[in-house]
C-alpha cells in the first residue's frame, strides 16, 4: 500500500466556536474537516456537555504540512488566550494525495 504522508490536526474546543472555526479552517486552506461532539476536562475545568455552554467539539483536519502550520499558528494567536482549546498534530498516511 502506497500512502502519502499528511498531517492530522485535531482541535478540541468549545462548542460555541463551531461555525467560526469551520469557516476559518477552510479559509486557511483545508479541503474539509470532521466534527464530533465530545466532553472533557482540562485547564478550564470540566466541560460535561450537560447543556449548550458546556459542550466541547473535536475538529479533525487532514492537510499538508503547510496548512497544518497555518492552522496551528493562527489558532494559537487568535483563540488560545480566550478559549478552552487543545490542539495536536499527528503524522498520517492517505491514499489520494490530491484530495488533501
Amino acid at each position, binding site marked *: 500500500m502506497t500512502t502519502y504522508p499528511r498531517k492530522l490536526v485535531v482541535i478540541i474546543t*468549545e462548542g*460555541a*466556536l463551531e461555525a*467560526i472555526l469551520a469557516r476559518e479552517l477552510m479559509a486557511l486552506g483545508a479541503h474539509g474537516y470532521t466534527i464530533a461532539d465530545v466532553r472533557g476536562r482540562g485547564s*478550564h*475545568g470540566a466541560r*460535561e*456537555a*450537560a*447543556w*449548550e*455552554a*458546556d*459542550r466541547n467539539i473535536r475538529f479533525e483536519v487532514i492537510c499538508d504540512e503547510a496548512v497544518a502550520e497555518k492552522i496551528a499558528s493562527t489558532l494559537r494567536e487568535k*483563540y488560545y*488566550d*480566550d*478559549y478552552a482549546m487543545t490542539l495536536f498534530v499527528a503524522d498520517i498516511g492517505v491514499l489520494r494525495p490530491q484530495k488533501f
Partner: protein
Amino acid sequence: MGLDPVVLFFLLGVAARLLRSDLRLPEAMYEGLSIFLLLAIGLKGGVELARQPLADILPQAGAVVVLGLVLPLLAFPVLKYIGRLDHYNAAAIAAHYGSVSMVTFAVALAFLVDRAIAHEPYLPLFVVLLEVPGIIVGILIARLGGGVRRIAWKSLAHEVLFGRSILLLAGGLLIGWIAGPDALAPQAQLFFDLFKGVLALFMLEMGIVAAGRIRQLRRTGPFLIAFGTLMPMVFALIGGLTGRLIGLSVGGTMLLATLAASASYIAAPAAMRIAVPQANPALSLAAVLGVTFPFNVVLGVSLYYWLALRIHGL
C-alpha cells in the same frame, strides 16, 4: 400553597447533583425541552396578541426596550467598581443581567396562572423585546473600554438577532399572531396543555446545571453571591415601577419585575463567547445559574408578586 411542584423539580435536580448522582438528562432532551418552551411561550403570546390592537401596546413596548437598555448600564459600574471585576468580565456579566431568562418568566407565569391572578396576556412579547438590548449594550461597553479588536459586527448582530432563542420566541409569536387561537387549537394540546409538565422536567435539568455552578462560587468569592441576589431585587423594583408607569396590572407588573430581575443563560452566554471572549464564562455562569436563577425561582417570584402589590398600593 407551599412549594410549587416546578420548584420541587428544580430542587430534585440540585439534590441529584450535590449527591453526585449519575442522573443526567441527555443533551438532546435539554435542547428539545427548551425548543418546546420557547415555542410555547411565543405561541401563547402570539395568540393573545391577535386578540388586541397592536397600536395599544406600542408605547409600552418602547418603554420596555428602554428598560432593557438601561439595566446593564446600572449593573456595569457595580460590577466594575464595587466588585472590582476587570472591564470585560464586568461588561459580560452586565449583559447577562440586562437580558432575561425565559424559564424564570415561565415560572412566574405559572405562579400567576395557578393563583388565577390576572395579567396582560401579551407579556411574552416583552420577553422577546428584553432579550436583545441588554446583550448589545454589554457588548458596546466591552468594546468602548477594551483594547482595539475588530469585532465582526455583522456576524454578531446575526448571532444575537437570529440566535435560537429569539428565533423561536419571535417565530412562535408570529405564528400565534397570524394563525390565531382557532387555527392553533389542534396544536394547543401539545404546546399549552403540556406546558407545565415540560417546564417541570426542564427545571429538573436546570437544577442539575445550576448546582454544577455552585462549587465555582467558592472560588469567585462573596461578591458574586451578593450581586446575584441584590441586583435582581433592585432590578425587580425598577421593572415593577416601569410596569406601573406603563399601566400594567398587578400581574403584568409582577411579570415585568421578574423579567428585569432575571438573567439570561441561553442567549447571553452564547453571544458573549463570540463577542467578548476575554470574559471568563465561569464567572458569569456562576452568578447567573448558581445564584440568581435559583434565588428567583425559589424566592424571587413570590417576592416580586408582593412587590407588585405594594407598587400598586395594595
